C-alpha cells in the first residue's frame, strides 16, 4: 500500500505535538491496554464527568496521534456525545476505507480515514479508543455503542 493518506500532516502534527498527554489526578477510571502483536501500550485515565481524559503510552505515530485526537474530541463531552463520536471513529477505522468520515463529528479524526486502508495499522489507531472505553466503564460511564457487536465479529 502506498503511503498516500496514511501519514497526513494532521497526524504527524498530533504525533509531534500531542495534546493533553501525561497522566493526571484526580481520575475515576483507568485502563492499560497492550497491542500483543507489536507491544504498543497505553494507559488512559478519565474523570467521571469526562472533564479530563489523560493518557500516557509508548507507540507509533498512529497510536500516539490517535490518543491526542481522542483527548481533543472527547474531553468535556457528555457520555452520550462521547459514545457517538467513539462509534463514528470505530466505524471509520473498520470501514476498510469505504466509510466517508463526517468532519462535524470527528474533527481532526477525519485524518485517520487513510489508516483504515492499512489493516495492520487499524489496531494502532484503535488502541487508545479501546482503552478509553474500558477506563470510562470503570468510572461508571457507559460509552459502548451499537458498533460494538460488529467489532467483536471483525
Amino acid at each position: 500500500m502506498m503511503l498516500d493518506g496514511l501519514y497526513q500532516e494532521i497526524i504527524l502534527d498530533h504525533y509531534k505535538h500531542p495534546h493533553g498527554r501525561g497522566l493526571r489526578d484526580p481520575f475515576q477510571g483507568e485502563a492499560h491496554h497492550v497491542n500483543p502483536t507489536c507491544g504498543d501500550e497505553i494507559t488512559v485515565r478519565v474523570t467521571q464527568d469526562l472533564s479530563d481524559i489523560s493518557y500516557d503510552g509508548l507507540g507509533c505515530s498512529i497510536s500516539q496521534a490517535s490518543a491526542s485526537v481522542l483527548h481533543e474530541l472527547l474531553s468535556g463531552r457528555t457520555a452520550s456525545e462521547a459514545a457517538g463520536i467513539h462509534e463514528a471513529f470505530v466505524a471509520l477505522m473498520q470501514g476498510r476505507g469505504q466509510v466517508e468520515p463526517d468532519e462535524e463529528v470527528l474533527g481532526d479524526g477525519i485524518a485517520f480515514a487513510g489508516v483504515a486502508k492499512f489493516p495492520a495499522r487499524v489496531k494502532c489507531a484503535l488502541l487508545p479508543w479501546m482503552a478509553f472505553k474500558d477506563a470510562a466503564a470503570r468510572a461508571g460511564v457507559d460509552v459502548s455503542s451499537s458498533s460494538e457487536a460488529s467489532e467483536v465479529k471483525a
Partner: protein
Amino acid sequence: MTFDVARVRADFPILSREINGHPLVYLDSANTSQKPRQVIDAMRVHNERHNGNVSRSVHTLGTEATSAYEDARGKIAAFVNAATPDEIVFTKNSTEAINLVAHSLGQHLSLKPGDEIVISEMEHHSNIVPWQLLCDRTGATLRWFSVSDEGRLIFEDGLINSRTKIVSLVHMSNVLGTINDVGPIVAAARSVGALVMLDCSQSVPHLPVDVRALGVDFIAFTGHKMLGPTGIGVLWGRHELLAAMPPFLAGGSMIETVTMGGTTFAAPPARFEAGTPPIAEAVGLGAAVDYLNALGMEAVHQHEQEITAYALKTLADVPGVRLFGPSTPEGRGGTLSFGVDGVHPHDVGQILDAVGVEVRVGHHCAKPTCARFGVPAMTRASFYLYTTTDEIDALVRGLDQVRKVFG
C-alpha cells in the same frame, strides 16, 4: 441431476493416474481425501506470491498473508456455522484438536478422582488415548458406550450421570460408517452439566454440519480428509469456554505480554495457536471449503448416499463377504468395512491394489472397534464426492480376483 461426478473428477489430477496398469480406483478417502486442482493451485499461488509470516508484520507480504489466513478462518467458521471466526482454532490435525481440549479443558475443570469422562467403543484412537492419559493425570475415570451387532451406539441409561464432566463422541465412525444420533447424548449431558465434544473428522467432510444446531461445545476436524492439505486441523469451541480455558501449547503469538518472571495470554483463538501456524495450509483449506460450498454439502451427501446404497447392495451379493456396521444407508455414511472369509485383509488389500483398487486394511486406528467384532483387522472401502458406481464394480471384480488367488 445437478451433481456431475465426471466434472468433479476432472478437477482431481491424481484420478487420471494408473496403478499397476489399471486406472486408479481410490476408495480410501476416509483415510485421506484427494485434492482438487483448486486447492493445490491456491497453495502454490500463495507460496509464489503472498508468502509472509502472519500477525507480526506491517509489511505488504505480511499483511496479505495475514488476510489470507484470517479469511480462511472466516470461511471455515461459516462452513460449520460458528458464531464468530474467533471460535475457530487452527491445529495441525484433528488429533491435536482433541489433545488440546483434553489438556486445557481438563485443567479448566480441575478434574479429579470420582469425575467421569464418557466416550464410546467405536472411537478412533485419537478420541480414546488423549482421554486415557487425562484420566491417568487426574484420577478421573473413563467410561464408554458399547456398540450393537449392527454397529449402532447402545445408549445405556445412567452412563452419563452426575459424575460425568466430559462426553467425547465420534460423529461418524471411520470404521462402521455409523452416524451417531447426537441429540439424546447432548440432552443427557446437558441435564447433568457435562460438556460435549464431537469428533467430526469423518462428518464435516461429508455432510452439512452446523455446530449450533448440534448444540455441542467442541468439535474437531481435519483438513486432509476434506479436500484440503495435510498439516492443518480445526478445533471449534464455544467462545465463552475457549475464553475460560488455559493455553495448551505455549510460545510466539499466543501471549499478551511476556517477562522472564511471567506471562499473560492473548484471547482465543490466538491463545491456542502457539508459533507460526500452518499458513499456506489454511489457505488450501479455505479453497477446499469454497470447493465444497460451490457443490453444496447437501448435494455431496446425497451423491455419497447413492454410492453407499449401491455399494451395500452390490457387496451383499459377493460370496464370503461379511459387512461390519449398518447394512442400509440410513444413518450411515460412505465408509464400508468388511471381511472376506478365510482371507486376511492384508492379502485382500494387496490383491485389490494389483488391479488399481486402493482400500485400507488393518485396524483403522480403532482397535477396540475391531475387537468388538472379534477381528484384528478389516478391509475398508470409503467414498467421496468423486466416487462412481463403476468404481464399486471394480471393487467387486477385484474381490473375485481375491477369491481366485486364495480360493
